[in-house]
C-alpha cells in the first residue's frame, strides 16, 4: 500500500532523517513513537511533499515516486491519495467547518458543489459534528476543531491518512474525544500512519508501532512487542520516561 525507502533529509547542517524505511499494508494502523526532535514530523511531511526530501523513494500502491525529484503532477496525484491531519489543526480560519471540508473537494478535486456538500456533511456527521456545519474555526473547541481536521481528511477519501500528534494541542478533556473518533475510523479499515504520544491509543488501536530516534527507525513491532519486550536500549529508556506509572509493569 505505502512503502518508503531510504528517506534522507537535511536542514542546514543537521541531518534530520538518515535513511528511513517503512512499509504499510492496506488497513494497517501504524503508530510512530520517538523523542522530540527525532524526525517524526519531518518524515510525515516528506511523504506528503510539504517538505522536499533530499533522497528517497515512495511507492503508493502501483505508483512509484522519487521523493526528491517528483514532478508537480506526481505531487498532485500523491496528495489525492494521502491526507494529512495537522497537530495544530490548521483549519482555514476564513471558512466554516463545512467549507473547510468542501474546499479540497470543489477546488482541489473539481467536484460539483452539491456532491461535495453531501460528502462533507457525511464526514462531519461521522466525527459527530452534525450541528456545527456553519461554525467558524474560532467558534469551535479544540477537540471540535481537530475533528473538523479529521473530517476534512476523510472526505477526500484518501488511501492513507497521516496524523501528526493529533491530540497534543488539546486540553486533557478533549483528547478522549479525538482519540475515540480515530479509533472509529481505524476500525472502519482506513489505513493510518499516526505520530502520537498517546500510549493507550498505540496499545489499543495500532497494528504496528515504530520507534524512531535521531532520524532512523530504531525498532518496530506489534504494540505488545514494543511495550513489553523492547529490544533496543534506547527504546527502553524512552518508554520508561514516557509511559505513565501504570504501564511500567510491562517493562
Amino acid at each position, binding site marked *: 500500500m505505502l512503502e518508503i525507502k531510504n528517506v534522507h533529509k537535511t536542514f542546514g547542517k543537521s541531518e534530520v532523517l538518515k535513511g528511513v524505511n517503512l512499509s504499510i499494508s492496506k488497513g494497517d494502523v501504524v503508530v510512530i513513537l520517538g523523542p522530540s526532535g527525532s524526525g517524526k514530523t519531518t518524515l510525515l511531511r516528506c511523504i506528503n511533499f*510539504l517538505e522536499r526530501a533530499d533522497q528517497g523513494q515512495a511507492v503508493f500502491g502501483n505508483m512509484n515516486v522519487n521523493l526528491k525529484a517528483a514532478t508537480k503532477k506526481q505531487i*498532485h496525484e500523491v*496528495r489525492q491519495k494521502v*491526507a494529512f491531519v495537522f497537530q495544530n489543526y490548521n483549519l482555514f480560519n*476564513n471558512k466554516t467547518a463545512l467549507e473547510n471540508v468542501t*474546499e*479540497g473537494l470543489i477546488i482541489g*478535486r473539481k467536484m460539483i458543489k452539491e456532491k461535495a456538500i453531501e460528502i462533507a456533511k457525511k464526514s462531519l456527521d461521522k466525527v459527530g459534528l452534525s450541528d456545527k456545519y456553519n461554525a467558524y474555526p*474560532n467558534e469551535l473547541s479544540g477537540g471540535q476543531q481537530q475533528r473538523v481536521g479529521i473530517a476534512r481528511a476523510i472526505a477526500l477519501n484518501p488511501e492513507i491518512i497521516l496524523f501528526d500528534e493529533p491530540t497534543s494541542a488539546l486540553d486533557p478533556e478533549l483528547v478522549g474525544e479525538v482519540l475515540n473518533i480515530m479509533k472509529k475510523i481505524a476500525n472502519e479499515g482506513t489505513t493510518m500512519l499516526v505520530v502520537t504520544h498517546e500510549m493507550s491509543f498505540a496499545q489499543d488501536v495500532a497494528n504496528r508501532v515504530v520507534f524512531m530516534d535521531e532520524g532512523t527507525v530504531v525498532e518496530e513491532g506489534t504494540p505488545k512487542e514494543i511495550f513489553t519486550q523492547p529490544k533496543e536500549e534506547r527504546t527502553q529508556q524512552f518508554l520508561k520516561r514516557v509511559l505513565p506509572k501504570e504501564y511500567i509493569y510491562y517493562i
Partner: protein
Amino acid sequence: MQGSFNLEFLVDTFFVALSGVPTALIITIVALIVASPFGFLLALTRINRIPILSQFSRIYVSFVRGTPVIVQIFIIYNSVPLVISSLFSKLHIDKNVYEVNPIWYAFIVFSLNTIAILIEIFRSSLITVSKGQLEAAQSVGLTNVQAYRRIIIPQALVVALPNICTATVNLIKATSLGYAMSLPEITLKAKVAANVGYNYVEAYIDIFLVYLIICSLTEYGFKLFERKLSSYKTTTAKGGQQYA
C-alpha cells in the same frame, strides 16, 4: 486681525473646498487601484526573497518612505515630462506630452508612492498568515495560486485592512500637496477663494473641516468593511487588556 472673522465667507468657501473633494478622491482611488497589484507582487518577491526584484523593492520602499512627499512631487513634476518628451523624440512619436492635465502627474506621484506603502503593508500582513494554512491547502489538493486566492489572501486582507485604512487616509491628506502641481483640489480651491479677500484663516478652517469629514467617513467605511470581512473572527473574545 483687523478684518474680523468673516462667517459668510466661511460658509461660502466651505462649498468651494467641498467641490475639490472629487479630485482628491479620484486621485486616491486611482492610486490605490494602480498600486495594489504592483504592491502585492513586489511584496511576494520580498517574502520569497526573489533575487534582484526583492532588493529593488527594498530600496524603492526605503526611498519613498525616507523622503517627504512634497519633495517626491517636485521631483516627478519636474522630471517626468522631460524624460517622456526626450523618449518620444527619440522614438519619433509626435505627441505633445504637455497637453496633459496635471491630474496625470498626481496619478503618477501618488501611485508610485502608494506602491511602496502597500508593499510594506502586504508583506507584513501576508507573513501573519501561518504557513500551516498554505500547507493545509496544499494537502487537500489546492494549487499555490488557488491557496493564495481562496485561503491566504482573504485572511491577510483582514490583517492588512487597518493599515490600508491608514494608508488611504494619509493618501487623501497627501493630495492636499497637489497645489504644488496646480491641481485644483480642496486646498488650492479654498486658497484661491481666500485670495480675493485675504480670508486665509476662514479658508483653512474650511479645508480642515472638509478633510476631517472625508477622512473620518473613510475611516468609518473601512471599519464597516473590516467588520464584514472578518466575520469569521467576530466571536473572538477581545480580552480586556485593562490592568487591575
